């Protein structure tokens, strides 16, 4: 049996279409069987509501008198793109306010406009013969714009890796606050309700397909940026009219210590054409798995603790290395349900008809990492290979002499096997000398927890280690934990002295 899109639209027009949400579908298929579900159900609605950073809107202000070609543009002190002529702009949701920083950003501008609040436009220009005006300041409501079109390059991730943190400090990430020593797990995604997870082969979702976008009737433009369906990480580029949107489904947010983002409500109705659609929409949280990654590793390739399903994540706790760790969602499942329910009412009420893609989206392509023609500086480019170290059993006075003679403030401490076991600084030695007590040997005063770097580590990562730990030197160690060089704040100066920058 097969149903055509026209048959389904006819039922929507008649008000006889059977519409269910993607959360209801697995039970229907289990009860009626695949063929039974195909006969019974005409449309499956999906929904998701979560942080979607790659979002924004095109705005057209209309011309001022005398006219201006805006080159630098701010809305409530949030800078918008000035490279479009003359009164067009694009405002991205993660752009932060010049004054309020992460407390207010592009996302807040869009939410304020949708909420009916006025927003201050400030713009400047060089002035030309055709556009003589040089500055403008005016308060605008959403109704004053000719167009306000949301256009989001990367939305509706098919799934998203979960996050934990193996380091001993709190991390502030786009995945929220990650507690030290794997103290929590953060995840995002609607799982069973996610649009692309209900159409993984991209037969139904493609260019021109109508969607629910923040309460408005929007449309899929095509594949989203970083679209990577090969790995199960498809994305969509979508658009919709900001003027028809609702604040219920468009919420500005701030991830503390990371920045501004926008919570977007997005849903797609899927026509149940054949058994393949039935099987795809019968997907459950248990069937969708993601990697649980260690965000403590500051690399593109973060190691995974394990794989987890959305069912496990939603249960409230998952196991990492034998320990129960509590989970938190960043996206709202209640709101995802509300999107799918609202969309269901739209289709049932004949407010939205379905179409098949006017152009299909690639369902196989992988994402590529950035091609880097120039490697950034690594520790080995600037490290100091002259290492003055000291044995753990040596006297503190010897350490003092070595510090003076070596013209350094840090002495890595090594054991009999030349392995790094600690570090002493000028401060540690001075303190021991000023308060003579029981301590006579280096091992009595050394710091045993040494933060280290490696020759091939990126300088930016090493700098972050210095900053986060409030220290000024890192021993550079090889794989056997032998000290082969030192990286101090002074070495960082080489980056600016031109020794590295050719």
């Amino acid at each position, binding site marked *: 049996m097969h149903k055509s899109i026209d048959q389904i639209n006819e039922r929507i027009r008649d008000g006889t279409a059977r519409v269910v949400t993607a959360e209801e579908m697995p039970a229907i298929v289990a009860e009626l069987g695949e063929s039974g579900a195909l006969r019974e159900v005409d449309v499956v609605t999906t929904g998701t509501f979560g942080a979607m950073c790659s979002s924004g809107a095109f705005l057209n202000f209309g011309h001022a008198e005398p006219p201006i070609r805006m080159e630098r543009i701010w809305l409530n002190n949030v800078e918008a793109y000035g490279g479009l002529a003359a009164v067009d702009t694009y405002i991205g949701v993660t752009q932060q306010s010049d004054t309020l920083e992460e407390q207010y950003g592009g996302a807040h501008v869009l939410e304020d406009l949708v909420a009916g609040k006025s927003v201050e436009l400030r713009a400047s220009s060089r002035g030309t013969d055709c556009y003589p005006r040089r500055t403008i300041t005016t308060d605008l409501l959403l109704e004053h714009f000719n167009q306000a079109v949301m256009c989001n390059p990367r939305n509706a991730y098919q799934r998203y890796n979960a996050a934990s943190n193996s380091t001993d400090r709190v991390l502030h990430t786009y995945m929220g606050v990650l507690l030290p020593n794997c103290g929590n797990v953060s995840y995002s995604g609607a799982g069973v309700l996610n649009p692309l997870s209900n159409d993984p082969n991209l037969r139904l979702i493609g260019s021109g397909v109508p969607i629910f976008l923040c309460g408005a009737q929007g449309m899929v433009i095509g594949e989203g940026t970083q679209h990577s369906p090969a790995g199960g990480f498809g994305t969509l580029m979508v658009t919709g009219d900001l003027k028809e949107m609702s604040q219920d489904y468009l919420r500005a947010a701030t991830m*503390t210590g990371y920045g501004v983002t926008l919570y977007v409500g997005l849903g797609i109705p899927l026509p149940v054409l054949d058994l393949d659609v039935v099987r795809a929409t019968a997907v459950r949280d248990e069937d969708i798995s993601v990697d649980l990654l260690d965000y403590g590793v500051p690399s593109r390739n973060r190691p995974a603790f394990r794989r987890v399903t959305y069912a496990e994540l939603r249960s409230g706790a998952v196991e990492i290395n034998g320990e129960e760790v509590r989970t938190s969602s960043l996206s709202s499942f209640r709101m995802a349900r509300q999107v799918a329910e609202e969309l269901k009412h739209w289709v049932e009420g004949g407010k939205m008809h379905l179409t098949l893609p006017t152009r299909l989206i690639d369902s196989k392509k992988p994402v590529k990492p950035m091609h880097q023609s120039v490697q950034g500086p690594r520790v080995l480019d600037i490290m100091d290979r002259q290492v003055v170290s000291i044995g753990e059993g040596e006297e503190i006075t010897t350490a003092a002499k070595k510090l003076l003679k070596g013209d350094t403030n840090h002495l890595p401490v090594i054991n009999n096997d030349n392995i790094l076991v600690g570090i002493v600084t000028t401060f540690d030695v001075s303190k021991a000398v000023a308060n003579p007590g029981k301590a006579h040997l280096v091992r009595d005063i050394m710091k045993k927890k040494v933060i280290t770097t490696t020759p091939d580590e990126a300088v930016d990562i090493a700098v972050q280690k210095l900053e986060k730990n409030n220290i000024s030197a890192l021993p550079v160690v090889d794989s056997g934990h032998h000290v082969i060089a030192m990286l101090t704040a002074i070495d960082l100066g080489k980056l600016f002295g031109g020794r590295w920058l050719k």
Partner: protein
Amino acid sequence: MKLLVTFSRKKGRKPIIAQVVRDTGVLINVERAIIDSSEGEALIDVPDDQCQLVRDTMIGLGATVHLLEHGITVKESECVDCGACISICPREVFSLDSDFKLKMAEEKCVLCGKCIEACPQQALMLPL
């Protein structure tokens, strides 16, 4: 009931909490305390029927005592029920109900404030 006790340590270093426990015989549960050389602040939990006694005794020893009737406050209009606060809270105050709506066990809250910065929607506030 929860009491927020603040005291100065400038005039001597009286062990106020220990003394109240000894004098009243009430077993005080210290849920959170920040005490440094000059002042101290402690959040304590005491049985309802002995709250007045503990309060009066502490005030008698020179401490300032506030009765805390509320935990962290959720601004309903801002909360989207994501649940980012759930795993951050050391006292397991937050959870989602069967409709995936955020619910709070307010009596467990010790007002540590850790959830406030974890909330993407800035929907959580201290009640004081």
